């Protein structure tokens, strides 16, 4: 990858990466650092990473930092992202889902985000997270089931 392609990667994926980092860590400042670090690593490894693999590489770097590093910390406080925009159709659902997402563990959250935000397949998520496809499927389904049960329970309360 040359400088042109690197810059194209920045322009194309910086926002998506930041969104993923924000939702994964729950902290905008941490997310900013993660994205910056991700692109620094990409620039250093640009000779080994081709342009078509750059996006997966960036998510891999950010995922590792977001999940692995944050997991090592004794306490991580996930604060909901400032409510910048919510779907006008069903704002409550969005809010509830964000809350449910905050209840998930880092890995489950990251897997849901990679699936729903970026549309990665199980095998692609397995590559990014360095898990087996079966593990991805199991962890993702576990997270999805939790979200569903959270939604149902809230609906029951309401």
């Amino acid at each position: 990858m040359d400088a042109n392609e690197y810059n194209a990667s920045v322009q194309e994926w910086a926002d998506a990466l930041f969104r993923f980092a924000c939702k994964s860590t729950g902290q905008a400042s941490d997310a900013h650092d993660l994205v910056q670090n991700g692109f620094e690593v990409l620039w250093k490894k640009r000779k080994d990473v081709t342009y078509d693999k750059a996006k997966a590489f960036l998510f891999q770097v950010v995922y590792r930092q977001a999940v692995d590093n944050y997991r090592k910390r004794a306490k991580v406080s996930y604060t909901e992202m400032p409510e910048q925009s919510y779907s006008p159709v069903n704002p409550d659902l969005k809010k509830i889902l964000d809350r449910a997402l905050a209840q998930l563990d880092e890995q489950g959250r990251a897997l849901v985000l990679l699936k729903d935000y970026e549309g990665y397949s199980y095998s692609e998520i397995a590559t990014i997270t360095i898990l087996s496809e079966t593990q991805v499927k199991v962890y993702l389904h576990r997270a999805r089931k939790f979200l569903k049960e959270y939604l149902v329970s809230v609906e029951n309360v309401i």
Partner: protein
Amino acid sequence: MITRENYEEYIMMYVDGELQPAQEKALNDFLVLHPELKCELQSYELTKLSPDTSITFVGESSLLQSLPVKRSMSFPHWRQYSIAASIAAIIFISLFKFSGEQRDNALVKNEQPIMQERETKEKPPNAAATRQPAIAAAKNDTEKSSPRNYYRSKTLVAKATINNKRENSTTPDLNTAPLPALPEATANKIMLAEIKELPYHKPETPNIHATDIPAYTFAANSSERGKSFWDKLPIDELKKKQLENIGERAANTYQEINAVKKDLDEKTLTIKIEKRKLILSF
């Protein structure tokens, strides 16, 4: 096979978009048979997140890297000029070499009008007014369209002019006499006129006026034959040397090109960069 025990997995795979068409159909069939489970599918579909596009990374420009300056391999300008000069020199030299070989025939004929012009201009205005009518008469002859008449008249003009000179000059022998230098303006004019008409100092011989023969017999002078046209060019020795150097360099370049061509024929490419040789074999 979808059962009540594993249907949830299929529903989640359906929400994730990971089901094969056949599996999708199987799930649909299963839900048709168990409509009470359709709400499960709807609940899972609600868990699907959509990206919040309003969240954007601020400071994207800080991540961008400055692009390297594009470098292109090109010959330096002086080298381009030297190649152009070499080609020009080859053409220039080959032209004169060729002309030198052919001087017995064509060149001498071409020199005649120049000589006439030069000699006419050299003539001092106060010189032998009595000879003017002879030149004028000869000139009138040149106006006649017949080629034979043209050369005859040229000879007449030369004859008249030389006779005229003899009267004014103290040197008895024209062969040994140093020729008067061409006026600079005239020389430039002639040079610009046509490349074939380049003047050179050709000593007049008595043959010119001794007999009224066609002009091509000028070449009969044996002392002229030994000299090449190159030697007779009205150019400084230093400039001649410089031209020779350019010609030599052009010849070297030509040889190098031939060597490359030969290499290509032998499926070997030799590239010489400064002092290093790169040999590519195919």
